[in-house]
C-alpha cells in the first residue's frame, strides 16, 4: 500500500519543492540538515517586515507594541508546542547549538566541579558533545559516554542505572532522535531514571521537535532544545526550554540591553524569567516565523508526521537494503525518517554528487558525528532524510539513481 496522504495534502505549500535541479525534478532528501518552508511562514515574515516591524519591549508606540505582542505570542506558542506549563520557561536562541552552549555555560559553570560527571552518549551531534568537553575542562568535571553498540546503534539503557549509581553524575545530555543513526531514544524512561538519581537532564530535540509530539512535563526533562530551521521555521531562531526549578537561579549567558533590571557604572542586576537570557535585540522576525511554523505543524499533527516518518523510514530501509554492498546504520524497525548508509567502496561525496546530477539532494559526510563514525570504522556516509512532504516514489527514484551510481563507480 502506498501511503502518501500527507505529501498529497501539504506538498503544494512548499514552493521550493516545485523546481528542477540539473534538469530533473528536485527530490529534497536533506531534511535532517534543514527542512523547507511553507508559504504561510515565508509570507508572515514578509508581512511582518512590511507592516509591523520595530524593536520590541522597550517601546510603547504602535509598531513596537505590535512587534512585542507578536514576539511574546511566539513564546507562548512555543510553550504550548512543547507542553510547558508557562511561557516563562521558553528562551529564544539562535538554534540547538546555542541552546546547549547556553546551558553548558550558565548552568554548567554553577553546578559542575571536580569529581562531577557529565554523561552523554556516543551518538551525540558535535553540538551536544563539544560544549560538554569544554565545560568539563573548565570546571574539572569529567565527561563520560554511554556506549553505542554495532551498526544498529543500540544503547543499552539498562546500563544507565549502574552508571548513575556508581558515579557522581550531575548532568545527562542526550539526543531524542539520532541524526546519523535514525534511532529513537526512550526519553521518558531515561529522564525518569535520571530524576530518581537527582540528575539534571538535557534533551537534544533537534531531530524530533518537528517530527514527534513532545510534552516536557510528561517527559519530565530539565532542558530541551531545538532549532526552528529543522521544523519549517526560519533560520537563526531556536528554542531552549528550561524547567523553572533549574532556570530560576541560572545566571545570564550574554549581557546587554533587554536583560537587565538596574545598571550602575559598578554593577548590574538582571530581569527575572526568560528575558534574562535574551540580551540585545532578538531575532524578532525569526520568532514570529517560527510561531507560524509551529502552528502549521500542529495543524498537520505531529502524531501523523511521526507515523509518516516511521513509514518512510521503514520503506527506505527495505528498498535500500536490497542494493548490493550497502551498509545501513541504525535499527531496521521503529526508526525515524532518515537513513544513513555506505555503498560499497564508493565515497559518500561521490554518491551525493552523482545523485545531485539527477536532482536528488542527499547529504554526505560525518553528519557532525565524527567520533561515532570513527568508532564504526567509517569516514562518511550518505544520508537521505525525509519530511512529511516526501513521497514513496521519491524513495523509488533514490533507489534507481543509487543503482546507476553503483554501476558508474563500481570496480
Amino acid at each position, binding site marked *: 500500500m502506498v501511503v502518501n496522504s500527507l505529501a498529497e495534502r501539504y506538498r503544494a505549500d512548499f514552493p521550493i519543492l516545485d523546481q528542477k535541479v*540539473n534538469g530533473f525534478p528536485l527530490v529534497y532528501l536533506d531534511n535532517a540538515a534543514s527542512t523547507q518552508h511553507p508559504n504561510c511562514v515565508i509570507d508572515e515574515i514578509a508581512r511582518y517586515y512590511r507592516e509591523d516591524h520595530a524593536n520590541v519591549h522597550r517601546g510603547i508606540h504602535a509598531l513596537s507594541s505590535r512587534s512585542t505582542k507578536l514576539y511574546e505570542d511566539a513564546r507562548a506558542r512555543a510553550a504550548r508546542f512543547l507542553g510547558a506549563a508557562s511561557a516563562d520557561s521558553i528562551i529564544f536562541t539562535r538554534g540547538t547549538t546555542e541552546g546547549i552552549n547556553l546551558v553548558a555555560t550558565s548552568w554548567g559553570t554553577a553546578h559542575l566541579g571536580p569529581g562531577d560527571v557529565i554523561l552523554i552518549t556516543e551518538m551525540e551531534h558535535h553540538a551536544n558533545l563539544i560544549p560538554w568537553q569544554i565545560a568539563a575542562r573548565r570546571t574539572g568535571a569529567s565527561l563520560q559516554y554511554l556506549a553505542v553498540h554495532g551498526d544498529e546503534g543500540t544503547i543499552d539503557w539498562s546500563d544507565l542505572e549502574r552508571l548513575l549509581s556508581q558515579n557522581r553524575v550531575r548532568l545527562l545530555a542526550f539526543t531524542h532522535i539520532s541524526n546519523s543513526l535514525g534511532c529513537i531514544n526512550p526519553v521518558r524512561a531515561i529522564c525518569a531514571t535520571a530524576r530518581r538519581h537527582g540528575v539534571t537532564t538535557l534533551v537534544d530535540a533537534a531531530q524530533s521537535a518537528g517530527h514527534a509530539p513532545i510534552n516536557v512535563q510528561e517527559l519530565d526533562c530539565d532542558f530541551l532544545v531545538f532549532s526552528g530551521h529543522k521544523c519549517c521555521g526560519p533560520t537563526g531562531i531556536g528554542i531552549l526550554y528550561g524547567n523553572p526549578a533549574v532556570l530560576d537561579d541560572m545566571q545570564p549567558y550574554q549581557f546587554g540591553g533587554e536583560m537587565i533590571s538596574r545598571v550602575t557604572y559598578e554593577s548590574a542586576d538582571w530581569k527575572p524569567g526568560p528575558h534574562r537570557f535574551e540580551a540585545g535585540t532578538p531575532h524578532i522576525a525569526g520568532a514570529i516565523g517560527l510561531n507560524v511554523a509551529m502552528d502549521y505543524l500542529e495543524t498537520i499533527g505531529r502524531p501523523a508526521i511521526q507515523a509518516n516518518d516511521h513509514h518512510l523510514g521503514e520503506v527506505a530501509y527495505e528498498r535500500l537494503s536490497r542494493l548490493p554492498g550497502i551498509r545501513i546504520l541504525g535499527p531496521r524497525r521503529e526508526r525515524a525518517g532518515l537513513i544513513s548508509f555506505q555503498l560499497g567502496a*564508493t*565515497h*559518500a*561525496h*561521490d554518491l551525493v*554528487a*552523482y545523485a545531485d*546530477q539527477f536532482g536528488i539532494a542527499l547529504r*554526505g*559526510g*560525518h553528519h557532525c558525528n*565524527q567520533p561515532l*563514525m570513527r568508532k564504526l570504522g567509517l*569516514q*562518511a556516509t550518505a544520508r537521505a532524510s525525509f519530511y512529511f512532504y516526501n513521497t514513496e516514489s521519491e524513495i523509488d527514484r533514490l533507489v534507481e539513481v543509487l543503482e546507476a551510481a553503483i554501476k*558508474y*563507480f563500481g*570496480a
Partner: protein
Amino acid sequence: MEIDELYQTIILDHSKRPRNFGELPPPATKGEGYNPSCGDEVVVFISQSPQGTIEQVRFTGQACAICTASTSLMTTQVKGKTVAEALGLKRTFIDFLTQDAIPATGLGNLQALAGVKKFPQRLKCATLGWHALEGALKTNVG
C-alpha cells in the same frame, strides 16, 4: 551529461586504480591533508634526490574519487621535478580550477579535473593531495 564532465574516464580510472599508492619509509618526508567537512584524508610521501628533485612519491589515504584521482594524477606529474617546479605546478593547477580562462598549459593529465570548475564544492577534494604534497616538501628531513 554534466556528471561525466566531473568524473571523466581518466578520473574514474585513477580513483579505482590509484597510481603510486602506498607508503615510503623514512628518510622520505610526509605531508597530511584532511578535509573536516567530508572526512577525506590523504598522506603524501616524497623522497628527494641529492640534486633536490623529487625522486619518489607515494600516497595513502581514504578519500572520494575526485580526491583520490587528483592525488594519483599529481604523483604522476611531479616525479623528477624540483621543489620549486612542483610548487609552481600546484599554483598553476589551483589557478586553473579557481579562475576563469586560465589556459591548461603544462598541466597534462591534470586537465581532466577541469570539471571541478563547475563544482566549487569539490575544490577542496581536488586540491587536498596537493596541500599534502606541499606539507611533505616543506618538512625538513630530520
